[in-house]
């Protein structure tokens, strides 16, 4: 069957009525998550995993997985839409990838053009979503065809590359990021070893036999940690919310932003493909590029519509691009995709080259649902933007305790154990303290998720080679991955030594 056939089948899956409901819920919740301060796409997706698990309880295993992933992916790209709303109206980004949008978006709002800015960012996000989907459709099949030829050694090296790339770009200190990665991988070894069946580091505690559940750690570190931060630091939205007058952009606005949207989408998509780069870098680079290309760069920072259109398109395109390494190779390239991957694994679906062979319905269903979801987001965001702006005003007094309740409820609904509930509280404190001191948390969760796979592949490769570690260097593809990984880490270091400023990714 050709790609088009598969896509048609996927569309048929996505158009089943219950899946349409799931897409709708996903993008709606995603937008709200993006708008609400103190809860980002990562904690949003993590919190919703248990709820979707229950909602899909009545379906067969594959349908349940498809519907849940459709909803969770909807939350992911919906949050990208929602994040721009607060950037423009309040000058505070709802999630970190809309930081750049505040530069021009808030200025536009001050000039009374908030409606136009919001509309352009919705249109840009939509165009970017579609462009990145087309890229996804064309790249998914060939990439997984390549990846399927990988043996355990190649896989191990690919994961090393992915982890190094994320550590190289995460946070202010590379040493700290590498520490967090190693710590996450170590935490993943707790429990019963899946190859030999011996127990490791369990100290006889039955709660530890099945290992630390990634969901517990992710909810604790991101959702609860963020809540503790808000409580301690008394963050609040005291800023004035700008008024929205006219929603539809003028013809002049559309003309000025068509180019930036197209360029931002393509650039964002390719940056999203790179492991570790992600939406923040994409929005930043596209802003810089537009400023360079513009005929009157002095307008940037004073309410140029291109300064809203380009980064917003780029960060949405990047979130679509980030799905590609996840779906085709099973390597998440950002914190949120790592959590999505955890959801895949919970449903016993292994993302990777075999995904398109073993679960074509799921893979193409999810891809097609992103078409539907982006369309819904456009429709939702244009007329309802005033309603979403109201969501910002949710008082922290009620929001903060409710997020804790949701975390407890979510984890308990899946794990049924008090041990896990106490663990999220501990993780919340640890997560807050670590991230406050610039220890990035995304590498930790990524290590926790990739740990078991990485270890299995390493041991398989070593079994093939009779314990000879040179196998990782003798296979050419594996060697290439390792070299790229080392370069990824060392080039920024060299640049820093020569006194250049290196841009970093600060997603959680």
């Amino acid at each position, binding site marked *: 069957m050709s790609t088009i056939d598969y896509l048609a089948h996927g569309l048929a899956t996505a158009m089943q009525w219950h899946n349409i409901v799931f897409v709708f819920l996903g993008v709606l919740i995603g937008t709200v998550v993006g708008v609400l301060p103190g809860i980002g796409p990562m904690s949003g997706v993590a919190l919703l995993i248990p709820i979707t698990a*229950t909602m899909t309880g009545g379906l067969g295993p594959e349908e349940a997985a498809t519907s849940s992933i459709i909803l969770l992916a909807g939350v992911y790209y919906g949050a990208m839409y929602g994040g721009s709303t607060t950037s423009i109206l309040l000058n505070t980004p709802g999630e970190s990838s809309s930081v750049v949008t505040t530069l021009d978006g808030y200025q536009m709002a001050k000039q009374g053009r908030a409606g136009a800015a919001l509309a352009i960012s919705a249109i840009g996000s939509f165009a970017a979503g579609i462009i990145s989907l087309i890229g996804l459709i064309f790249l998914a099949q060939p990439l997984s065809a390549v990846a399927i030829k990988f043996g355990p050694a190649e896989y191990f090296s690919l994961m090393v590359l992915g982890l190094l790339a994320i550590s190289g770009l995460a946070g202010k200190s590379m040493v700290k990021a590498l520490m967090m990665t190693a710590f996450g991988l*170590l935490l993943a*070894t707790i429990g019963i070893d899946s190859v030999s069946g011996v127990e*490791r580091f369990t100290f006889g505690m039955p709660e530890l036999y099945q290992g630390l559940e990634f969901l517990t750690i992710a909810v604790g570190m991101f959702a609860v940690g963020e809540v503790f931060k808000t*409580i301690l630091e008394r963050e609040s939205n005291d800023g004035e919310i700008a008024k929205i007058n006219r929603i539809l952009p003028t013809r002049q606005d559309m003309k000025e932003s068509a180019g930036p949207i197209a360029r931002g989408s393509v650039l964002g998509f390719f940056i999203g493909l790179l492991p570790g780069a992600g939406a923040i870098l994409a929005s930043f680079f596209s802003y810089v590029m537009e400023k360079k290309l513009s005929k009157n760069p002095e307008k940037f920072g004073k309410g140029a519509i291109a300064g809203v259109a380009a980064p917003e398109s780029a960060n949405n395109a990047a979130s679509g691009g980030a799905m590609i390494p996840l779906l085709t190779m099973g390597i998440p390239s950002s914190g949120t995709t790592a959590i999505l991957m955890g959801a895949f694994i919970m449903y016993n679906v292994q993302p990777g080259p075999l995904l398109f062979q073993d679960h074509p319905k799921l893979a193409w269903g999810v891809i097609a649902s992103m078409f539907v979801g982006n369309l819904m987001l456009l429709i939702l965001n244009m007329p309802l933007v005033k309603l979403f702006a109201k969501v910002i005003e949710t008082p922290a007094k009620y929001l903060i305790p*409710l997020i804790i309740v949701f975390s407890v409820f979510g984890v308990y609904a899946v794990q049924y154990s008090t041990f896990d509930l106490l663990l999220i509280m501990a993780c919340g404190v640890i997560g807050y303290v670590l991230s406050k*001191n610039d220890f990035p948390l995304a590498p930790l969760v990524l290590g926790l998720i990739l740990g078991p796979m990485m270890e299995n592949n390493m041991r398989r490769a070593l079994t093939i080679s009779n314990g000879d570690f040179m196998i990782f260097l003798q296979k050419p593809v594996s060697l290439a991955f390792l070299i790229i990984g080392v370069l990824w880490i060392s080039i920024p270091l060299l640049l820093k030594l020569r006194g250049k400023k290196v841009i970093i990714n600060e997603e959680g």
Partner: protein
Amino acid sequence: MNHSFDRYAGIVFCAIGIAFMIGSRSITASAYGSNVGANIFPMFLGGFLSLMSARLIYETFRKQRQQKRQSNLDYKRFVIIFTAAVLYAFFLEDIGFVISTFLFLMVGFQTMERGKLWKSVLIAACFSYGVYYLFVNVLDGSLPGFPAWLGIS
């Protein structure tokens, strides 16, 4: 950047790395049909973690600039909510979801901001029972219900 925190964190993580290395020595070194055992991966990573921690500790000594950041943290509010959350987690199974959630929400709302007692009661009650009803009766999930000694259900 807070160097003294980094130093302590470095020491703690270094100790964790070493502990994992020591711990992995007691794990069997071979699996069936393979001379690669369950100990290699944690052993290697433990070493890597302690090396990186050592590097971090070294960095904190190299740049000895202590800049005190003016921090005004609201510890009282945090301690109350955190204690309430831990108690909530601990007693969830004993007193049931609805009652424990209601109590936790009341404490949480009132600690965040005093006043509007009736509004808090209303929101907490609606939320705790609403979520329970939706999850258990509509979605057929399972949550600890009311404690048996209340005799409700």
